[in-house]
């Protein structure tokens, strides 16, 4: 089996790996790099559980081939907190009880981060629209929306 060498920047650190062209980024993250924080929910782009940020944009890692990310910048859930310093979104998800089973949570945090990185004052309608590609079956979304709004406030205070 021919394996391709890929160099990337992963959570701020230069990384390289070998993969088969048919392997998705999700598969390589989990099976080759041991980064299991990115979750598989559907493996066909319909649930957002595998969301990662690639060159600043939120994508489903199941719909990206690992070979494609040569030279690109990749952020996964493992890179969101710095040590025990949680990102305001992570703290807000905890404070608002915005997770129950938690399987969709990494995807929601990555998608929400991609939103707040661009639009730090998104309103409820905008948040719901942006997060429509992420399915949650436990919460009914109420507390997730509230958590994202809470994180906006926290980030605004941090920057003030």
């Amino acid at each position, binding site marked *: 089996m*021919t394996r391709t060498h890929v160099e990337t920047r992963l959570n701020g650190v230069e990384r390289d790996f070998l993969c088969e062209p048919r392997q998705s980024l999700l598969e390589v993250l989990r099976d080759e790099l041991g980064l299991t924080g990115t979750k598989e929910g559907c493996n066909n782009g319909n649930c957002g559980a595998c969301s990662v940020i690639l060159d600043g944009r939120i994508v489903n890692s199941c719909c990206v081939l690992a070979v494609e990310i040569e030279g690109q910048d990749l952020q996964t859930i493992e890179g969101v907190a710095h040590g025990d310093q949680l990102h305001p979104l992570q703290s807000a998800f905890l404070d608002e009880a915005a997770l129950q089973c938690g399987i969709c949570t990494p995807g929601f945090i990555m998608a929400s981060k991609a939103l707040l990185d661009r639009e730090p004052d998104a309103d409820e309608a905008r948040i719901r629209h942006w997060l429509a590609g992420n399915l949650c079956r436990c919460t009914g979304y109420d507390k997730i929306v509230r958590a994202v709004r809470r994180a906006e406030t926290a980030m605004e205070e941090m920057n003030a």
Partner: protein
Amino acid sequence: MEAFDYVAPRTLDEVYGHLNNGKRTLFMAGGTDVIVQLREGRRECDLLIDLKRIEQLTSYAFDSEGTLVIGAAAPLARIYEDVDVRRRLPGLVDAASLIGGIQIQSRASLGGNLCNASPAADSSPALIALGATLVIASVSGRREIPVEEFFLGPGRNALEPGELLVEVRIPAQPPRSGTRYLRFIPRNEMDIAVASAGVRVQLAPDSDTLESVRIALGAVGPTVKVVDVTSLAGRTADSATIEEAGRLAAEVATPIDDMRGSIIQRRKLARVLTIRAMEGAIERAKEIR
């Protein structure tokens, strides 16, 4: 998923070098459809050619005549986020911002959406309403065709072996014109159109008289349906005319019953969506941009 080789050429000439060698070859732009199709065994290939490293195919710009030239592999989100595009072509933004969720839009392209040739694709009715054309290239040259001529049937497009779609060209829109694309889905996002309508109207310079109307319908036939609305030219853009447009649309629709919708539902939607899209298009035509 079967094994395949992968290349990411930098130029079209490099692409041509990978063709016509007996290998089963597929092109990939955003990959949001083709990767899933390969995984589910709905398509197979020996070689996957990634087009995203070719700058010409991932960029977009307005040319000197006001035509928006979009590389076939440019991600939708980059196009619809552009302030100039939003101002000048809101009808395109309607469609581009509906395909998949945000994650899909970061990657998916107009070229990929068109080449899949799904009768329910969101891009095609809007592009047809806008009078867009497609540039198809091969080692022996380029040809340009209207979008409506690109679709031959469900999943079948007009590309010949050795050809690829490289550009979508949307001409500068006439003055006092407006375009609106609407689709219906049972949820509010993350769904395939049950039916859709793209409508462009052009009003007379100083009245509500319709100078021209273009209507294209999605998911109500094997390919996008272009509605003959020549009879509407010269009429006033009022509710009776709009109703008439809806009636014409429902007549043209030849929908099927499937898991996503029924004949009765789709025929009704063809009428309702045409009416609503036309109302929106007229509103936009009257806006001063």
